[in-house]
């Protein structure tokens, strides 16, 4: 009996040990298959001294750590799902040779690099970081300087461009590139970037369902933000200041423009927001301050403008024909030289419940709505549209007199273009 018990004891301990081995074996297998990813360090004194070499030896899912230093490299191709992370902003200097980083794989993250000297070319659009036909990319905390194109996304979807700083030195439109460019992309988020002194700060072409928010785009040669043939995009809480023109939205549908600031886009051909062939958009809660033209509208239909502030612009809204069924509601028009300019006598747009600082009517029944309608189009702006040379008479006493008489009895301006319910108090 005792012997039998001994045998059992020995058996159970053997089984227990085997079980333990099994667990260890399993964990080992598991870590090999899912990749207990390697970390490769790149620095000037390390074994690996260039990013290119690091990418060559790396395997998928690895992380490449780039230490502080300067790396003179260009045409770096990231063709594996890697995370490239910079420590204290290592400098990748392209030495004006051409493109610097090209991502051709899915699931790539680029974080914390300082990339300078992208080559200028008249035949190909060299970019600091170009993403080609890839998914789930993340580009963040990157600083770009002395660039041609900054971040160029090409046929790439479901990615994020977050918290980058792009500072160009564009002088002329013909030999400069865009800060962030999206070409045939879908579902990309562009968020908290700063773009300065490039041609177009952010440029979208054939890109749908893009979210652009909390970016600051200033001092760009052409537009702060530019849409072409892109639909269903949203941009919110961005600031556009001192650009050749703030934002241009062209040939696009269902764009939402919410709570942005358009500031000081001032010059003879400048404007805050340009709309050309735009349908079914929503423009709400934006502030247009000190632009030559707040919004320049051409051939755009079914747009609702609500709760925007137009402050001290040359023209708050300039309508250039072929604009139907637009609604302006609950906006503030404050101290603009011209509130609304129209070049035709036909009007199909609705202005209602806005606050106009130059409204001189009264409110006897104290319901907060002026008792007499307001006519936002001045005769002078009508004349200027007809004969542009007459603008030279601006601020002449004669013009004030004819504006006043037109206000009293409209003859030339569209007689149904009135705000029947002008607000007596500024809309908060």
């Amino acid at each position, binding site marked *: 009996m005792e012997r039998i018990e001994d045998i059992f004891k020995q058996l159970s301990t053997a089984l227990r040990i085997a079980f333990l081995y099994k667990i260890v074996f399993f964990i080992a297998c598991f870590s090999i298959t899912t990749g207990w990813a390697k970390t490769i360090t790149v620095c000037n004194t390390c074994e690996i001294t260039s990013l290119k070499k690091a990418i060559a030896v790396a395997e998928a899912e690895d992380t490449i750590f780039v230490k502080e230093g300067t790396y003179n490299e260009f045409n770096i191709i990231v063709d594996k799902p890697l995370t490239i992370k910079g420590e204290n902003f290592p400098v990748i200097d392209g030495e004006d040779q051409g493109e610097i980083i090209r991502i051709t794989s899915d699931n790539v993250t680029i974080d914390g690099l300082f990339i300078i000297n992208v080559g200028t070319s008249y035949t190909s659009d060299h970019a600091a970081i170009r993403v080609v036909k890839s998914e789930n990319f993340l580009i963040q905390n990157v600083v770009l300087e002395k660039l041609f194109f900054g971040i160029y996304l090409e046929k790439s979807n479901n990615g994020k461009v977050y918290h980058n700083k792009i500072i160009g030195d564009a002088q002329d439109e013909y030999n400069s590139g865009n800060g962030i460019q999206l070409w045939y992309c879908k579902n990309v988020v562009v968020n908290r970037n700063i773009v300065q002194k490039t041609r177009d700060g952010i440029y979208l072409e054939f890109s749908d369902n893009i979210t652009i928010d909390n970016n600051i785009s200033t001092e760009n040669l052409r537009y702060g933000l530019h849409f072409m043939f892109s639909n269903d995009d949203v941009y919110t809480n961005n600031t556009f200041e001192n650009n050749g023109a703030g934002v241009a939205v062209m040939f696009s549908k269902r764009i939402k423009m919410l709570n942005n600031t358009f500031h000081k886009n001032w010059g*003879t051909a400048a404007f805050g927001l340009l709309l050309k062939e735009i349908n079914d958009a929503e423009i709400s809660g934006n502030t247009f301050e000190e632009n030559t033209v707040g919004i320049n509208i051409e051939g755009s239909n079914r747009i609702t403008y609500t709760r925007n502030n137009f402050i001290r612009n*040359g023209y708050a809204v300039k309508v250039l024909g072929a604009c139907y069924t637009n609604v302006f509601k609950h906006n503030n028009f404050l101290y603009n030289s011209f509130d609304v300019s129209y070049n035709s006598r036909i009007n199909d747009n609705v202005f209602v419940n806005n606050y106009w600082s130059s409204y001189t009517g009264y409110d006897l029944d104290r319901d907060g709505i002026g008792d007499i309608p307001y006519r936002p189009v001045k005769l002078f702006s009508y*004349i200027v549209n007809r004969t542009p*040379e007459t603008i030279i*008479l*601006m*601020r002449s006493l004669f013009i004030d007199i004819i504006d006043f008489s037109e206000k009293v009895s409209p003859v030339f301006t569209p007689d149904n273009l009135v705000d029947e319910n002008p607000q007596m108090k500024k809309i908060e």
Partner: protein
Amino acid sequence: MFKILKYSFFDLVRSRWSYVYLFFYLALGFVLLFLNNDLSKAVITLMNVIIILVPLIGTIFGVMYYYDSKEFTELLLAQPIKRADIFLGQYLGVAISLSLSLLIGLGLPFILYGLFQSTAIWDFVLLLVTGTFLTLIFTALAFNIALYNENKIKGFSYAILLWLFMAVIYDGLFLMSLILLEEYPLDTFSIGATLFNPIDLSRILILLKLDISALLGYTGAVFQKFFGTGLGFSMALSALVLWVVLPLLNIYRKSRKKDF
């Protein structure tokens, strides 16, 4: 001439109207800057006031002074003094006292609000220069009108008419011709037409210096190109000088021949 000038000048400086005029500008300057501390914005508002008001005050004051001091003038004419000296002296007395009211009245508040630290200083100087020119021009024109008309009522109405024409009607005609001739290139025409009216010329010279010039678009660019060059600017200045000199020559000529 200087004796007469001195006499006219001190006579005017002691008069109530000079003070009213001075205090008006002082009040205007201080109120404007009190309401809005931005000097360059205040310059725009002042421009509106100056191009309308300065010519009006210049004409009315000039005509009034001439008629008021007529008896004294006749007394002087009996003395062995050159006729031109008498009238030019009186003219300068009026023009200088009005200009001083303008310069002190506007200059003082702006200096107190830190004009010298501001970038608007050249815009402001231009404003004062054109304001002074407008005073000189319209006072001279007023003296001309008064010399040609013995009848006070007639003289006053002509003076008012002159102001109305320059400040309002001229622009109306200008606008009409621009619209009627819109088929033709109008750049040279509109530059020419502004040179012929000192009020328009001052308005455009100031507008071009301000931010608001961006609103003028293409036309503004043409004007900027013309007045921005040394040649254009000196042409504008010489047009203003001519507007002073020609009426003065006429005062000189007329006063020599006129029967009193």
